[in-house]
């Protein structure tokens, strides 16, 4: 049994996503810009995100044993002509980090992208030095370059690493049996 499962984000998740979006330490890891987010703004965001979108897949990561919602994982900027998408993941519950849940969630999202959606390529952007870069590489992502000084985090301009995985990389890294076929 997988340690975690993914499900669509729901309005009931408001309490948690609101708390995580207001956690500035998360943005220092992720490389995004921290903003103070009101409950009302969070609710509006969630209503928008729970609606079906052809260019985004927004999922909650839950622990199988307890059903606890510990973080979110997304496919964004889906381009159906180029068949590529950007992957994003965050484990919002601080106590649930470094337990391998992120890796398991990423694995499920990757197979959803290639096996269910028929995408040709996934890419992720990560702050230089973030341990998630190594994780992505062990999952079959290839480091494709560095956007110099691309983001401003905690008072400094920082580099952003681009990693990509084509469907060929995906199939090479995973024997057929492992892909559940």
């Amino acid at each position, binding site marked *: 049994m997988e340690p975690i499962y993914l499900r669509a984000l729901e309005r009931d998740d408001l309490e948690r996503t609101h708390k995580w979006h207001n956690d500035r330490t998360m943005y220092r890891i992720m490389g995004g*810009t921290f903003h103070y987010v009101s409950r009302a703004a969070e609710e509006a965001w969630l209503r928008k995100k729970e609606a079906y979108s052809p260019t985004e897949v927004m999922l909650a990561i839950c622990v199988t044993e307890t059903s606890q919602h510990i973080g979110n994982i997304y496919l964004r900027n889906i381009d159906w*002509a*180029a*068949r*590529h998408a950007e992957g994003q993941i965050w484990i919002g519950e601080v106590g649930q980090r470094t337990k391998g849940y992120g890796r398991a969630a990423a694995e499920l999202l990757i197979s959803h992208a290639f096996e269910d959606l028929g995408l*040709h*390529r996934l*890419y992720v952007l990560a702050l*230089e*030095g973030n341990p998630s870069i190594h994780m992505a590489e062990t999952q079959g992502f*290839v480091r*494709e*370059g*560095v*956007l*110099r*000084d*691309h*983001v*401003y985090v905690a008072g*400094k*301009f*920082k*580099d952003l690493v*681009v990693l*990509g995985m*084509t469907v060929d990389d995906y199939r090479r890294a995973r024997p057929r049996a492992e892909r559940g076929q």
Partner: protein
Amino acid sequence: MEPVYLRALDIDDLDTIYRWHNNRELQMQMGGAFRYLSHAAEEARLRERLAYSSTDVALAICLEGSSQHIGNIGVSEIDWIARHGEITILIGEPLEQAEAYGQAALRLLTDHAVEEMGLRRLYAFVLAEDAFSMGIYEACGWTVEATLREHAFADGEFKDVVVMGICMDGGTPEDH
């Protein structure tokens, strides 16, 4: 080479831009997937771009002597905190000096973005096989920062896309 100048795009430019966007060869070269675009859709798009935006600057490239409108250049995706923006260049008219005009326009826009808008980093996505656009950026001192493998689909194939970038102070290596 005749000097060029930049001006804001305007609604009078509709027919010219409509013609460029429906030119399959030109769109292929730009790396976008080709789409048939109606005059009405082009007008809606243009009106949206012409409205004041704090994250998007859309300009026409014109020849100094004749005022001929030969292409478009813009900064979009402006992030005021990271102080970066994405550049797009389209030279629509098949002129002999097209690459030189592109370079001149990029220099003018870079001055505007840095000196007047206070941006400190610019980047662009270019098809790896698009020597014309790569040449423009490289001549202006830009660096290839990443190669996104099979990132675009054009002309029946997945193609590599290059990210090019320039940092005004050459980056700040002591920071990281």
